[in-house]
């Protein structure tokens, strides 16, 4: 077994960004459109409870809910939590309280932020009102936050009996029918033991796989384990640089941000000594002359961390029997 000291751990920033586009049901559409118009709607359940924020189905009975009512923009804090260090994306950039607020007329509470000078000014039961965002699009963020509000408190509302909120038809001009929620998560990627060694090899323009100590198969690139034996791959084995095209496809659609003319060939290439094929682009030969068994070698460009593409070596084609197990 080749024993070498573990190389320095590699790290790279990794950003996962995705805008989720979601359609809305009739109740959610009315609620979010209402926020845009500075109107807060709830939905009444069969038992008479008013849910704010409203949902399409009764959480207790699963019955379809459609009876919209308008509730107030003022309410009472039912619980809170002081956030001394706001995080990216949260409603306020300065310290604030997370609050669950039961709006007057509602029987349930809505989560949002409360803009308050400090934790000593927040308590359960305090009265608050909505601060509307200046620009509203039909989203929960149309509520910028809550703010403290001094009034003659109407007392905790149950949303069932007196002060019964007025019915609302949920009709607005130009209703919102969907939302797009952008999300971004930042990571620091570390590839782990096997792939770190592989990447260090590539930096020296060497392709180094790892052999399974049990079945002797050489994995390139190595992933750290042999999926047949379920054991760690250990022995490092340099493979290639030459290899054989085991199969390929012709790409006819230009990929975004990729400066390669179509059509081109993308192939599975079994490097000499490797137990499975890796994939790469084939260049230096017309696309319609690429064939199974074609012998190829990597082409490196200045400063690159991996081969730009593979080109024919000029050797005779490999015999099918030499690579049929690697298809």
């Amino acid at each position: 077994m080749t024993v070498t000291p573990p190389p320095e751990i590699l790290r790279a920033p990794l950003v996962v960004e995705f805008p989720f586009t979601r359609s809305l049901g009739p109740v959610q559409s009315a609620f979010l459109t209402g926020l845009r118009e500075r109107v807060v709607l709830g939905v009444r359940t069969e038992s008479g409870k008013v849910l704010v924020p409203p949902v399409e189905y009764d959480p207790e009975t699963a019955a379809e809910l459609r009876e919209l009512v308008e509730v107030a923009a003022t309410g009472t804090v039912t619980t809170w939590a002081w956030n001394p260090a706001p995080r990216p994306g949260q409603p306020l950039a300065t310290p604030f309280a997370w609050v669950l607020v039961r709006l007057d007329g509602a029987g349930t509470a809505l989560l949002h932020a409360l803009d308050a000078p400090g934790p000593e000014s927040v308590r359960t039961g305090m009265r608050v009102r909505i601060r509307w965002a200046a620009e509203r699009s039909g989203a929960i963020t149309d509520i910028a936050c809550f703010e403290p509000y001094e009034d003659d408190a109407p007392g905790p509302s149950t949303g069932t009996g007196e002060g019964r909120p007025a019915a609302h038809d949920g009709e607005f001009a130009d209703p919102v029918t969907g939302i797009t929620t952008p999300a971004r998560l930042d990571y620091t990627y570390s590839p782990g033991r096997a792939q770190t060694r592989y990447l260090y090899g590539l930096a020296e323009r060497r392709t180094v796989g790892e052999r399974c100590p049990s079945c002797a198969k050489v994995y390139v690139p190595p992933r750290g384990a042999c999926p047949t034996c379920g054991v760690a791959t250990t022995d490092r084995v340099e493979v290639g640089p030459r290899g054989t095209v085991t199969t390929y496809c012709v790409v006819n659609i230009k990929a975004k941000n990729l400066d390669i003319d179509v059509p081109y060939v993308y192939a599975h290439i079994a490097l000499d000594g490797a137990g499975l094929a890796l994939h790469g682009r084939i260049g230096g030969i017309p696309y319609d002359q690429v064939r199974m068994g074609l012998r190829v070698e990597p082409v490196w460009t200045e400063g690159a961390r991996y081969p730009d593409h593979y080109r024919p070596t000029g050797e005779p084609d490999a015999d099918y029997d030499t690579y049929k197990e690697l298809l």
Partner: protein
Amino acid sequence: MSAPLRDVAIVAFAQSDHRRRTDDLSEVEMVMPVLHEVLRRTGCETSDIGFTCSGSSDYLAGRAFSFTMALDGVGAWPPISESHVEADGAWALYEAWVKLLTGEADTALVYAYGKSSPGSVRDVLTRQLDPYYLAPLWPDSVALAALQAQALVDAGHTDEAALASIAARRRADASANPHAQLTGARPQGDHVVAPLRTGDCPPIGDGAAAVILAAGDRARELCERPAWIRGMDHRIEAHSLGVRDLTDSPSTRLAAERAGAFARPVDTAELHAPFTSQEVVLTRALGLGDEVRVNPSGGALAANPVMAAGLIRLGEAAAAVHRGDSDRALAHATSGPCLQQNLVAVLEGDPR
């Protein structure tokens, strides 16, 4: 609740040392030693396992399809009978248990792992929330737990001093747990999101765990004192936080009832309470008295590899039965914000 169709037991449990970072290891490299360890404990090889089920979430480390890579560590080729849940491994164990109850397999390997260190787990977990009303506000996991904690304080069920004493007890208990990440006395620290302080929150870290299940005589062959699963059930709260009574956990109570937990007292309970305040909710919901040993492992306050911490509760409870430290144990796992979804299992050892 009717008796299970077949006797199924947890016959082995293994876990990694839980660490703040594992930059030197990929996920499969982290998981594999745990898989080998749990197999070694039973003398089984991969080929002896009838069904494999895992729990994990690609969002934690931001690696798409990492669970398929982790399968390499099982020896999944040629294809084995296998499944995955994008949830805590406790739910993978549930699936495996059902599989064994049907008689389609006699043994199962269940594993789970979480690598939280590459990302910011507080923010990552916001992506599991309601996408219309919650996710756009990015309410992080500590913030939501803190809202629940304040509700408990308001209701008079706890206070900051009581929470601090839970934190201290769990980390003291964890001193006897060689795999724990956070052990011994440590300061409660500042408010992360008040009323929760650093000490009330779980450590962030990476880790993995695995158990082996076996049915009937096979369980007796593989383990001297199998931890028989007498019942298991999982239930969920209403979706919206504002609809729930955050001071209670009716779903835990219902799952426990359906699992048969209240038929006779348990001597040990492993509760998946990442926050001190959630232990208050759970002990109240389950009616656990002082005579019950709660989280002798230190629980999630000592090591909280997300997606594995629930499975570890089942594993720790089973290991207590294997060792003879427990005759009847309750294990609980949770998922989602403020104890959204809860699983309860009852484990028993044969009479001694």
